[in-house]
């Protein structure tokens, strides 16, 4: 294994890789202006902001709690080595890095003078501890799987750490982002009750720290005075209010009890349009609303039935019914990544609506009469109800009698994890990297989870190659081929990416919504 010398050579090489391939752009010690959103026009420091939320983070532990509601908030408190840039991972706590020739050794040079909320300066020891902790399955982190390409982590000196991989993996920098885990002081989890303590006292490096967390009530964050990015954050404090009722949230927005909120039902924005004291905004999303098809579930085992279903669906109609059109119809890629990674609709098979072809396929599969099928939806996901009714009508036209079954989220998660999801709607998001999007969900076991029991060897082979391929164009082609296979064999039908629809009061300035939906934008948000 030969290590590259000469940062400039490496930087050109890596920059070429990075831009198209979604890997990181090694930066100088300069801080990328892309971090945490665009800079504001005016200097406005201080004040407090109230954020209204329908969902509450169950806990504030980025190592053991996988819920999206948690990630959105801890993105302000904890930081990984990289930040989820929209086109590439951007160095955050890492300042820059080198990659060995064979792609197996990443050497990260850390930023100097990064402080922890509880005191102390970040060193390579802390980085090693943090990532060794999360990747050890014995510690029970939902993120452990994202790091199983790491073989060993070595401390070189106080500000240099080496990650040695088992095989090349182009999405390593993005995985070292802000979804799971973070850099925390070495030994954080040694004490008993350390996990629970994270709900009251944060130990991160992020721009905000926890002041007070009252479950079922509110969460107060305050500015971390020793934060390493100069001048940030602008806000003195953020108060999260947990309102479990959408009507109450709208009333709160109308009366400026709440400064910012994201509408879980985008079409509710109609009630606020025209009001003088608020502005409605739309942002593209990296999330997807999808229809999952378990190949072990009744008639879905026959590929032709799945293809027929795909052909029967009119996604525009569902988009309208579900979120009032506040989103984008998608095919095999989330809207936020379509340009960089997606495949054009014309190049994909079995894209509907084409009821004739769908009926023909059903007949070919031996279904001449009505076929009963149960669709599962999740209580609390408002878009699923009108979407389900619309889908029932659409599938009714190709001979499928759809029965709709609503289940509690905990039950649904349990079924999903047991690979027993049946025929169900799903909603999930990703970081902007195709390996992190597809591998775990669609690669067959044991390397992937293959939740939908797809057992597709050809697709799995493509995913494995895509994970290891470093040449950006080759990587892009591999994932295009994968998407074509996904469209052909239909383990899932990606329906649409719903826009993030936010409402901001007039005293709020420079608020942006990151496509992941995580609250990065609040770092550069200002209030009057």
């Amino acid at each position, binding site marked *: 294994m030969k290590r590259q010398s000469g940062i400039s050579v490496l930087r050109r090489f890596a920059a070429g890789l990075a831009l198209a391939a979604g890997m990181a752009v090694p930066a100088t010690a300069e801080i990328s202006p892309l971090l945490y959103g665009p800079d504001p026009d005016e200097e406005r420091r201080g004040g407090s902001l109230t954020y209204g939320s329908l969902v509450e983070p169950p806990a504030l532990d980025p190592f053991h709690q*996988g819920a999206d509601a948690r990630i959105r908030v801890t993105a302000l408190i904890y930081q990984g080595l990289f930040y989820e840039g929209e086109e590439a991972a951007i160095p955050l706590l890492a300042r820059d890095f080198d990659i060995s020739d064979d792609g197996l050794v990443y050497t990260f040079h850390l930023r100097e003078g990064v402080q922890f909320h509880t005191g102390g300066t970040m060193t390579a020891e802390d980085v090693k501890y943090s990532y060794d902790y999360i990747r050890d399955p014995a510690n029970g982190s*939902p993120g452990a799987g994202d790091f199983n390409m790491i073989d060993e982590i070595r401390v070189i000196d106080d500000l240099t750490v080496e990650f040695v991989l088992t095989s090349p993996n182009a999405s390593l920098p993005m995985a070292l982002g802000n979804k799971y885990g973070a850099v925390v002081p070495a030994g954080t989890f040694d004490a008993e009750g350390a996990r629970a303590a994270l709900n009251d006292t944060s130990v991160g490096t992020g721009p905000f720290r926890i002041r007070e967390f009252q479950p079922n009530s509110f969460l107060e964050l305050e500015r971390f005075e020793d934060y390493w990015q100069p001048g940030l954050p602008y806000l003195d404090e953020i108060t999260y209010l947990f309102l479990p009722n959408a009507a109450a949230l709208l009333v709160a927005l109308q009366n400026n009890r709440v400064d910012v909120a994201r509408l879980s039902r985008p079409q509710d924005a109609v009630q606020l349009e025209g009001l003088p004291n608020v502005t409605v905004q739309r942002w593209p999303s990296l999330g997807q609303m999808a229809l999952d098809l378990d190949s072990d579930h009744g008639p879905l085992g026959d590929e032709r039935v799945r293809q027929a279903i795909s052909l029967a669906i009119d996604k525009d109609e569902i988009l309208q019914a579900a979120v009032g059109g506040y989103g984008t119809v998608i095919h095999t890629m989330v809207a936020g990544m379509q340009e960089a990674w997606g495949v054009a609709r014309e190049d994909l098979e079995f894209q509907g609506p084409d009821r004739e072809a769908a009926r023909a396929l059903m007949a070919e599969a031996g279904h001449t009469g009505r076929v009963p099928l149960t669709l599962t939806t999740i209580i609390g996901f408002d878009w699923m109800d009108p979407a389900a009714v619309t889908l029932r009508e659409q599938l009714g036209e190709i001979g499928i009698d759809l029965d709709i079954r609503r289940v509690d989220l905990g039950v649904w998660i349990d079924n999903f994890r047991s690979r027993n999801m049946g025929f169900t709607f799903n909603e999930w998001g990703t970081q902007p990297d195709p390996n992190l999007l597809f591998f775990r969900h669609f690669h067959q076991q044991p390397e992937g989870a293959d939740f939908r029991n797809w057992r597709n060897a050809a697709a799995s082979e493509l995913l494995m190659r895509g994970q290891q391929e470093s040449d950006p164009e080759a990587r892009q082609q591999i994932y295009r081929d994968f998407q074509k296979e996904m469209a052909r064999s239909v383990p899932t039908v990606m329906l649409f990416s719903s826009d993030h629809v936010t409402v901001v009061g007039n005293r709020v300035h420079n608020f942006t919504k990151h496509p992941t939906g995580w609250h990065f934008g609040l770092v550069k948000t200002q209030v009057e």
Partner: protein
Amino acid sequence: MGAYLAKRLAASVVTAILSSLVVFWLVRQVPGDVVAQMLGQSGARGSAAEASLRRFFGLDEPLWRQYLAWVWAVLQGDLGTSWVRGRPVLDMVVAAFMVTLQLGLMTLAFATLIGVPLGLIAGLYEGRRIDNAIQAFNLLGLSAPVFWLGLILLMAVSQTLAWSPPLVFRSPGRDLGQNLQILILPLLSLGILQAAAYSQFTRQCVVSAFSQDYVRTAVAKGLPMRVVFFKHILRNILIPLVTFMGLILIQILGGTVVIETLFALPGLGRLLISAIETRDYPVVQGALLFVVFTALVVNLAVDMLYHVIDPRVRVGG
């Protein structure tokens, strides 16, 4: 009296134990557990992370051992620690209960102060216009769903007064003004309904009292209606009224979840709902046990109160 009290307490303990068994078993029948919730879509069943988490929460122990461990802790006053929040369950339950209790007591006071006089008047002037008017109010109050009433109040106030309640809950000790502003609309929503129920019940008590022998006798003796009413009827219907008060209180304490969800109050109802959704067994068990305990205490207190009101009532008879 002492023997009766002892007997009632013993019965309460048995009830509490049976309830704890039911609660413990029931909550584990719902598919999915806290580990599944925490891991979400990050991986499938059977992973090493899952095994580690199950061990962390003691979920790999046999059910009977989990139950005994929990009961043993409860008997020592330890309701355990929330698996999701990491806080002592007792602290969480008591804090939430205080919110529900405040709302409950205020609602009870409101319902009593409005409902009882209305019911007395309606019963006294049975058949007259005032009675019909009050009964119309009662019927409306009894039929309106509490959620609808709360939502209508919230939206109406917002539209007409451009005001909605503050959203950060503060206890009365910490900020009385904010506390009252937050509770006024929930109080009205719940209170109107309970006042209607109380009013109707009181009216029935008064009406049926008028047909009793002792009232006929009193009237026949030539006593003025005022004396008949306050000296005889009122004292005799006091027992059912107190019973009803106890029932209202228990109902309020156990049934505020809808109002708490609408008005974002961090009460016991909301705590239970979120604990069930996240499969936070210690909190579900602890909260339910607390509710059972409270119901038992209120029942016992009401029974004791009978004896105070009417010494003729033989407690334990």
